[in-house]
Structure formats: C-alpha cells, structure tokens
C-alpha cells in the first residue's frame, strides 16, 4: 500500500477542521444555556433541543421538511430520469425543441417564477397544502439535462441487447439504464434534496399555517424569540440548526457509496 505523506495528511486535517469549525462551534453552543452563553460560564444542557421540539414545533417542521424534500426528490428524479431517457434515446417530432426549452429553463432566475406559480396555485386552491409546496419543484430542467448527458454516455448497444432480449422501453429504462446511471441519479437526487431542504422563499409564500412550515421557516422565526435585553437566544437557534443539518448529513452518508464510481466497466469491450 502506498504510504501517505504525513505533511499532506496533517494539512488535510487542519483544512478539514477549519471548514468544520463553524458547525462544531454551533453544535457546542446548542448544548449551552442562554445564560451560560452570554455570561461565559460553562453550563451544559439538552434543554434547547427539548424547547425547540416541544415549545416551537420543530418536530412537526422536521417532518414537513422530510415529506416535502423527500417527495420533491422522489418525484423530481423520477420525472427527470424518464425525460432524460426520452431525450437521450428517442427521436421524436419536436424533441430537439422540447429539449431546448428544458435547457432554457436553466437560464430563468427562479424568483421570476414565484408570482406566476403563486397565482397558479392560488387558482388551483393548492396554497397551504403539501401539494402546493411540492408541485412547483417537481419539474427540474437541470436534472433532466444532467441525466440526459449521462445516459448519452451509456452505450446504446446495451439498450439494443435488452430489446433483443425482449424488453420494452420502460423495462430498458428501469432494468438497464437506471442501475447503470445510479451514481448520477443519486448525485442528482442528493442535490435536489439539499436544494429543497434549504428552500426558504417558496415555503414562506406558499404556506401560512404553522402546521405546514418547514424547518427553514421555523428557524427564521426563532430569531424573533427574545431571551431579554434585545438578545437572540443563540443556543436555541443553534439547537434548531443542528436539528436542521443532521438529516442532510445522515442522508449524504447513506447515499455516499452510490456516488463514488460508475459501473459500466465490463459492459463493452
């Protein structure tokens, strides 16, 4: 086995710690009482987490975030994969135009679509619903574009072999293309999940009910909780922040092994 250069390992550790330090510091603060934080005396507690969940409804916000981000990711990646397969593999009338339109959506700033989306959902009676939070984010032009490029790199002979084996186009997609494109699909899924998890603006305008708030909305509201004398209750905010980042971190660790390498090796001589 190749011996690592101790200097490079040390440097990597230092840089890693530097990047991690704000997160570690915020987790540290989340276990302090507000008084201890402002007076500087060491006093540790789990009370901030208990308050975030019981007093400020963070368990509900967490569940909402998981439902919304999870469904947006699942539906978004499914639709994007199917669109990408169609764009990559089939010649159909208007296909190039449709793909051009899909790519063009990447050039439109998301904020421009806020008002039209809001009006559309208001007319459909979908404001203050999960559907209202989820549907606008489901169509993802970038994911369709990214996956189409990836699928184009998969040898077409594999599709043809599957057709000769008796597969239908949908079987080719789900049994052959998707398993091979798994690293790209998981990467894109993670990207969609994190983007939706961090989404603040759309949930802010699409829902007004506390029961439908996501973590980001809940987190913003915490800044208004005043421990007295015009101070922000930072330990409480940091406990809520920790609740916000931990599922993403866990999700990343869960899918990380799927992101590492492609698996087309051996398919084609």
């Amino acid at each position: 086995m190749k011996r690592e250069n101790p200097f490079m390992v040390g440097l990597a550790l230092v840089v890693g710690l530097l990047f991690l330090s704000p997160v570690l510091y915020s987790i540290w603060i989340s276990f302090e009482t507000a008084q201890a934080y402002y007076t500087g005396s060491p006093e540790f507690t789990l009370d901030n987490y208990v308050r975030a969940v019981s007093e400020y409804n963070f368990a509900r916000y967490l569940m909402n975030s998981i439902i919304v981000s999870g469904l947006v990711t699942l539906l978004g990646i499914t639709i994007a994969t199917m669109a990408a397969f169609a764009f990559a593999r089939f010649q159909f009338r208007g296909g190039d135009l449709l793909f051009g339109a899909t790519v063009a959506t990447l050039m439109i700033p998301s904020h421009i679509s806020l008002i039209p989306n809001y009006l559309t959902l208001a007319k459909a009676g979908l404001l203050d619903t999960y559907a209202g939070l989820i549907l606008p984010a489901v169509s993802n032009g970038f994911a369709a574009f990214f996956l189409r490029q990836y699928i184009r790199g998969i040898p077409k002979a594999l599709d043809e072999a599957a057709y000769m084996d008796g597969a239908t186009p949908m079987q080719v997609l789900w049994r052959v293309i998707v398993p091979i494109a798994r690293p790209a699909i998981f990467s894109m899924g993670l990207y969609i999940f994190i983007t939706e998890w961090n989404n603040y603006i759309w949930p802010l305008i699409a829902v007004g009910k506390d029961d439908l708030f996501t973590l980001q909305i809940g987190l913003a509201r915490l800044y208004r909780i005043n421990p007295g004398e015009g101070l922000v209750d930072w330990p409480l905010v940091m406990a809520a922040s920790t609740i916000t980042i931990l599922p993403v971190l866990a999700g990343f660790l869960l899918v990380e092994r799927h992101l590492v390498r492609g698996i087309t090796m051996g398919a084609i001589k």
Partner: protein
Amino acid sequence: MSGITLRDIRKSYPNGPEILHGVSMDIKPGEFIVIVGPSGCGKSTLLRLIAGLERCEQGDIEIGGKRANNLAPQNRDIAMIFQNYALYPHMTVRENIAFGLELRGMPKAERNARAESVAKTLQLDPYLDRKPGALSGGQRQRVAMGRAMARNTSIFLMDEPLSNLDNSLRVTMRTEIKELHRQLGATIVYVTHDQTEALSLADRIAVMKDGDLLQFDTPEAIYDRPNNRFVAGFLGVPPMNFLPVAQLPGWQGRQDLMVGLRPEAMSVHLDQPREAALPVRLVLSEMTGSDLILHCDSAAGRITLTSGRKDRPRDTSNFWVSYDLDQAVFFDNHSGTRVDLASAIGPSKRCAEFRNGSSRQ
C-alpha cells in the same frame, strides 16, 4: 427453424445518402450465412434491419414466412450477439444469461437451471456469480453467446462477434461457433469483414460493397467463380493476382481482358518450364510457417504467390512462374465482371494451344 427472406431492401437515413440499394436474399432455415464486405458496405445495417433495431421503410423482410417489417425486435424471436458484447455490467453472468428468460416470464428456478446448463456448455460455470467487469475478453464473448443461446430462438444474428478477440482465441471461438451451429441447427446470419471467418464458417456467403449485394453463393463458388474483380480480390489470402491478359504469352491481342490467378494456381520454376510461364524477379518473401509468400515483379505487373519452403528461390533472384489456366478467372477490363473462359479465349484451337503452352514466347 425459421428462414429469412429479404426483398429489395433499401435504407437511407434522414438527409443522408442511400446506404442499401435494394438487397434481396433468401436464407433457408438452418443455414449459416456470412455477410462479408469492407467497412461501410452496409452489412451491419442489413443485420440491424433483420433484428428490427432499424426501421425498414422500403422492401420486405420476412421471418419464418411472415412479414416482419413492423414487428418490434422483442417480437421477432431472434437472438443477437453484438460486436462489443453489450453485457449488462450491473448483472452477474447468471443474470445476464437469464435476463431474456426473466423478461419472458420464465419462473426463477427454471431460468436459473437453463442459465447454468448454457454456462456449462460454454465452460462458464465457474464464473456464474461474477460480473462482466471481472471477466476476460474471451469469457465476455462466451457470456454474450450464452445470453443468445439461453433464449432457444431459431435465428441468431452475430455482428462481428470475434473482432475484439486476439488471434488464437478467435480461431478457437470460430470452431466453437461452427460446432454450436451444428448442435443447435439454428439459422445464423453472421457479419464480418474477416474473409477467413467467412470462408470457414459459411454455408453461403453474401459479399457486399457500397450497399450492393455483389454475390450470394457457397464459399467454393465465390472463391472459384467470383462474379467480379471486387469479390475475387476481397476473398483469399494472399489476394488474387490480376494481370492484363495481353501480357501473357500468346495473348497479345486481347486488350479488353484481365486474368485473375490465385497464388496457389501459380508455381515456381527455377528454370524455364515447358508450359507457359512468366519470367519474374523476387522482390520480397514472407514466411507464414509451412509456406512462403513470394512477391515478384514481372512484365505483367506485381505477382504474389505461395510456395513451399523447400522451393524457395534465392532473394532477388530471377525465376519463372507458370500458371494453371483451369483455375484462372477472366474479367472484363472495363466493367470488372467475370467473363466465361470459352468466350474469353475464343476458338478451341487457340485454347488448346494456350493450355499446352505451345504459344510460349
């Protein structure tokens, strides 16, 4: 068993030239057909049309007596082996072989048993749980064959299946494919640009060039009586020699003909022989094992012939080459098409004179 009939197949892509110019072929059930031709001649396109991987807009394809132009590939009951094998990289050898059976709803136990039996035939049983990435080129090629065999179809299409193998493995696999055909009795359409494969495997060979079918006949007929100069030159190693007939002793008047002589139809003589012969000068000799390939210059042009190692003339030496006119083929100088021997050499008297070498200069 099913046969395949192709009638006036034409193919062109949008905004592109025509690739196939009306190819017709009648393939009998159980026949081993090899389509051969240089790169870009349309042989793979023809195979893909039979498979249903390309749409056939002009002409008719009949499989087992039924028109198949509009049938999807999965409904044609055809198995195909691809040039690059196209194995599913995420599946094991067992899953690769059994995938087609799974798609057709065969129960798991039954399809696994079939996969194992096929793997045993192809000596792949130790590798059933490996993925293609962990196999050698030859093993991958066998898996591709196994995948096709497991389906138990009556027609196999093979698109240059041996072109990615090294020479010794190619020779071994060639024998195995021939043996497989004997065992299965299936109709096989095999595409290659390797003429040795074509001659050794085929019941009949289809020679293609630039989208046209030039000749469709048995290997013997194609080798001995090629329809034109292209076919004559394409099959055979070393290739046939083409000499202007007018340069041969006794044929000075015939400017309109070329004679085609296979290397093995010519013999080396260190001294001038009694029969008609050309004086030549050795330019280069190549050792092929049991034989030598001699490249010589003559008044009629460059001649390549084979000779036993014992008869080897000295380097750059001058010697004589006689030829067997019974094995010669004549071609029209302009059209390149074959001309019958009788019409080529005219009156029988001259023919007799020529054969006896009495016209020797």
